[in-house]
């Protein structure tokens, strides 16, 4: 097993752990927004780690180019997608649990 492979194995496991963290968040966090927050992490860091790890396990020049593209793309799409979910959740009236502050509530929207 080459060093590259070992690093790769470690990275994919780390990435998977990020996913598990996010999954834990999704299961345990109290409301939709905190859960979304957790997911956003997985979509960013988690995937990047896994994909880069995969690259190290299946190395190649064109693969590296693709992985760079994937990372950029994944960060962009996952964050935008997550934001869309968050906003829709808010507009759909999803409640905020145990909130300590809310600048959106100053317009007098009924609680």
């Amino acid at each position: 097993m080459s060093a590259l492979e070992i690093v790769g194995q470690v990275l994919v496991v780390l990435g998977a752990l990020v996913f598990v963290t996010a999954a834990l968040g999704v299961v345990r966090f109290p409301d939709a927004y905190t859960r979304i927050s957790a997911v956003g992490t997985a979509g960013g860091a988690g995937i990047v780690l896994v994909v880069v790890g995969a690259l190290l396990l299946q190395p190649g020049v064109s693969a590296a180019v693709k992985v760079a593209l994937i990372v950029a793309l994944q960060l962009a799409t996952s964050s935008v997608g997550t934001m869309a979910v968050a906003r829709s959740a808010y507009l759909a009236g999803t409640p905020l649990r145990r909130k300590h502050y809310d600048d959106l509530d100053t317009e007098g929207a009924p609680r």
Partner: protein
Amino acid sequence: MSTLTWPLRLAWFAAWYLKEIVVSNVTVLRDNLTPGQAGTPGIALFPTRCRTDTELTLLAALITLTPGTLTLGTAPHGAPEDPRVLYVHGIYHPDADALRADLAVMESRMLHALRREGVAR
């Protein structure tokens, strides 16, 4: 501060951001693995200094990618000189101002790295 240092600034920002992510991840992980929730969630209005759609989008994305913070959206700005605002959901900040402060740091670093000429503070 010039175009020459731009790639360097970008890389530095990336490194910093990576560190931020790791730290936040640990926070979230700790929160999740311990019984009960330690968070103090809330939504803060954050007036940005972004000038373009791209900057605003990037900032929003970075906020979202950071564990513990989440961009909910933006609002129309009445006049061109009005700041573009973001509504950000935070979990681990005691109040809106603390959240805004953290966001401001990230915004500054981002704009500094992003703008070819550096940021005009």
